[in-house]
Every structure is written in C-alpha cells, then in structure tokens.
C-alpha cells in the first residue's frame, strides 16, 4: 500500500494547492500514521494508538467483486421506501450520464455521517440504469471499517484511495466520488448551500488519467437533516485524530436522538428534509479544455458550475426541511 501511495503521489505531481497529499487526500489516500514519539508513553496516547491500530486493521482491501447486484436489487424496495417517504427524494437529469462506459460522478456531500444524498442518488442510479451496470462509490476507510456497515461493500462502496478509484474506472464502471469528503459533509448548517471541495483536485487528475467524462451531481437538503454547528477541526487536531484515524474533523451538531452530538460516530436520525439531486451534463475535459488541460482551471469550472446549480436549487426551496 505504501508503494501504491508513493506512485500515486509521484504521478499526480506536487501540489500547488496546499501540501504533498492534497490530491491524494480527497480520494482517501493519506500518509501512514507517524511513529509514536519516544516520549509518548502516557496511557491516553497508548489508548488512542491502540484504537487507531484496531481500526486500521479493519480497513478492507477493495475487492470490486464484493458488489452484489442481486443484493442491491432485493434491497431496492427498502431504499425506495426511505428515499420516497422520509426524504421525498427527487433526482433530475439522469439522462445526462453516458449510457455506458466508465464515468466519474462528482458530487457535493451533505448530512454528516448519515448522508441522505447518497441514498437518494444511488437508488435513482440503480433503478434508472439497472443494477447490472457496475457502479462504485468511494467512502472514507473508517466508514467501511465501522462494525455493522460492512453491507455497504455489497452496494459497491469501496475505500477511497487512488488505487481503488483507478481499479473501478478500469473496470468500466461509473464511480461516485465526493471530493469534499468529511470537510464538506460536516460543514455548518449556515454553509449548507455552498460547494466546498477544500481545494481537492484529485478527481480532475483521475478523470484525465483515465480519459473519462466528469458528471457533476449536485444535491441539496442533506445539511438540513440536523443542525450542524462546527467541523471541530481544532478538537480533532488536539486529540490527534487527524494523524491516527485520518480524521480531520470531530463534528459538533444538534441531532436526534442525541441532542448535542459530538463526533457523529454512531450516526443520528436525520430529519425528513426533502432531498433534491440534479445531474449536470457530462464534461469531456480534453474536448472542452484542450489536450493538456490546466487542472486548476477544470476544478474551478466544475465547482463553479455546481455552485450555480446549487444556488438555483436553493432558490427553489421555500422552507428548510419542507423543501
């Protein structure tokens, strides 16, 4: 894994946007935890390292064959009930996704650790194209490591890393990535209608390396499923979660049934906010930006286009949660 990481970094080059791992970070690739300093022998440090090691050992290696179309098909009714009755989901523009072949779906992400936009979109994708079409979603390693969430692998969820994204695209699949990741999904509620990828441009390089179109997927409503107060980045740093668990945030929110919810590790009951998703026309990067596109320019174009759509979707909403 370390070799893969190194090769991915070297291929993606140095970063102009903030550190040697910026483009890898948005696809889940992170530097290995730093060795424990000689002086770090206090019980708290040892406990935190033990937890980190336990979770790290549970990080699954992506096996694309774990996706199970029959399982997905049989669970469509449950997804449909939840998406239709609780979230009143509405997905527009699925016809903008190329009918076949590999495609990189790039979405904005909302809703804390319970992300209703993913549920609504994956259901719509599966029913529109059929469960036979290969479709993978990249998620934080920790999500797939959590006890009880192993079933996500059967839906095609794989641990986010450049290597896994490449494997999925090479298989001709549609791949859904959320470049904003934990940074975006835990943004405060008053930033709900902002696309925030934190400058992570890895998805553009991924699309260029595999010559696949980028299809932006814009969702609204997810950040109304709880009152998100803070990402808690300072808290995460103080607890060394960024180095140990690749967690740069320790979000703080008011959410059912906990009330004050710190970390959102056990999820929460999302409020029944209406989720609307709009799929935008596919972007053929080289056709639109020339044979040697500037990654930053493409990134700006994608995020600006998504922000315009999010603004339009926000203008349509009359009331929070109600939609």
């Amino acid at each position, binding site marked *: 894994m370390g070799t893969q990481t190194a090769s991915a970094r070297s291929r993606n080059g140095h970063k102009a946007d903030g550190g040697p791992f910026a483009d890898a970070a948005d696809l889940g690739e992170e530097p290995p935890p730093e060795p424990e300093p000689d002086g770090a022998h206090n019980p708290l440090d040892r406990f935190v390292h033990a937890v980190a090691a336990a979770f790290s050992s549970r990080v699954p290696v992506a096996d694309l064959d774990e996706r199970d179309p029959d399982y997905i098909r*049989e669970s469509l*009714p*449950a997804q*449909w009930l939840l998406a239709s*009755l609780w979230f009143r989901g509405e*997905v527009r523009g699925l016809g903008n996704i190329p009918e076949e072949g590999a495609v990189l779906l790039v979405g904005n992400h909302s809703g804390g650790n319970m992300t209703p936009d993913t549920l609504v979109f994956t259901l*719509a994708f599966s*029913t*529109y194209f*059929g469960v036979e079409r290969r479709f993978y979603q990249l998620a934080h390693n920790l999500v797939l490591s959590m006890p009880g969430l192993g079933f996500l692998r059967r839906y095609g969820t794989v641990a986010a890393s450049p290597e896994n994204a490449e494997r999925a695209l090479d298989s001709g699949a549609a791949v859904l990535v959320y470049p904003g990741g934990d940074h975006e999904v835990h943004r405060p509620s008053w930033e709900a209608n902002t696309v925030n990828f934190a400058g992570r441009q890895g998805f553009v390089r991924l699309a260029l390396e595999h010559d696949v179109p980028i299809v932006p997927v814009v969702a609204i409503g997810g950040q109304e499923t709880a009152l998100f107060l803070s990402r808690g980045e300072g808290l995460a740093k103080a607890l060394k979660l960024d180095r140990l668990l690749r967690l740069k945030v320790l979000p703080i929110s008011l959410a059912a049934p906990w009330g004050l919810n710190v970390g959102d590790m056990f999820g929460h009951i999302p409020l029944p906010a209406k989720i609307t998703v709009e799929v935008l026309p596919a972007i053929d990067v080289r056709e639109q930006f020339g044979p040697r596109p500037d990654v930053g320019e493409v990134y700006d174009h994608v995020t600006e286009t998504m922000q315009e759509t999010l603004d339009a979707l926000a203008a349509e909403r009359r009331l929070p949660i109600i939609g």
Partner: protein
Amino acid sequence: MRIQAVIDVAAPPELVWDFVTDPTRYLHFMSGITRWEIASEQVRGVGARYRTLMRVGSAEVGGLVEIVEHEQPRDLAWTSVTGIDQRGRWRLRELTSGPTRPARTQVELRLQYGVAGAGLIGWIAEQVAAPAVRENLRRSLRELKRQAEHEQARAAVAARRAAAATR
C-alpha cells in the same frame, strides 16, 4: 402486486391496437412513463424488447421488457428481462356493436410488479407504490381514450368527405 384499470373507448379494437403496439406512442399517452425505447432490432411482435421507466415516488423504476404475447387485435403482453419483476397486458375486447351503433372497445391494462426476494419490506413497498401506479394506469387509459377517439373522429370525417366527393 397486481393493478388493473379498464375503460371503454369509442373506437374499434384495430385502432386501439395500433396505439398500444406502437412503442413510439407510449411517451405520448402513458402517464408517469419517462422512457419507452426500442431495445431490439424487432420493433413490434413477440420478441421485441423495450427499455421502460415509470416515475414512482423518488425513483424511475422499470427495466428491459420483452413482448411475450401478440394476438392481434386482442392481447399484448410483456414480461421483464431486467429491472424490477413485472408483467403487463393490454386486453382489448370489442363491445357489442350494430349497424347503427359505432364500434366500441373495452380496454384493460394490467400490471403486476414486485421484487422477488425483497420479503416483507418489498411487500410494503408494493402497497405504498400501488396508489401512484394505479393513478398512472388510469390517467394513461383516459389519455389513450382521448387520443384514440380523436383519431376515430378524424377518420370518420375523412370518410364522410371522401364519400361526399364521390357522389
């Protein structure tokens, strides 16, 4: 889950048959249908395949269907190949007509759907979806009746004009 809707159309079965066997017309009269594309070289008849989708709740559901019965102008049935399990049937029956009474057709549309293996949750989802699906079928039949009767009226006027011209 089986849902059906029936309507009487003031047109002969042959005319209604032309509507229900023409895949290019489905988007024009079927309510809730967002896709009805020809997916085989064969356009009509047993073996013809169509890619179909109907919006129900938060998703467009359907899949690839294949015509399995084509008895002109009485029965047209299809079954799913991929997607949710479904069987559909158009059943056209000529109502009593006479020299002084125009031809009428009883048009029945049946749809059975579900997801095998989905268990109790699947059954609940079928029940929850039923009112929307039923309403789509009813609206579809009303629109089919409107279009078919309009077509019948045009044909009758054209026939009368042709007869008058030959006198």
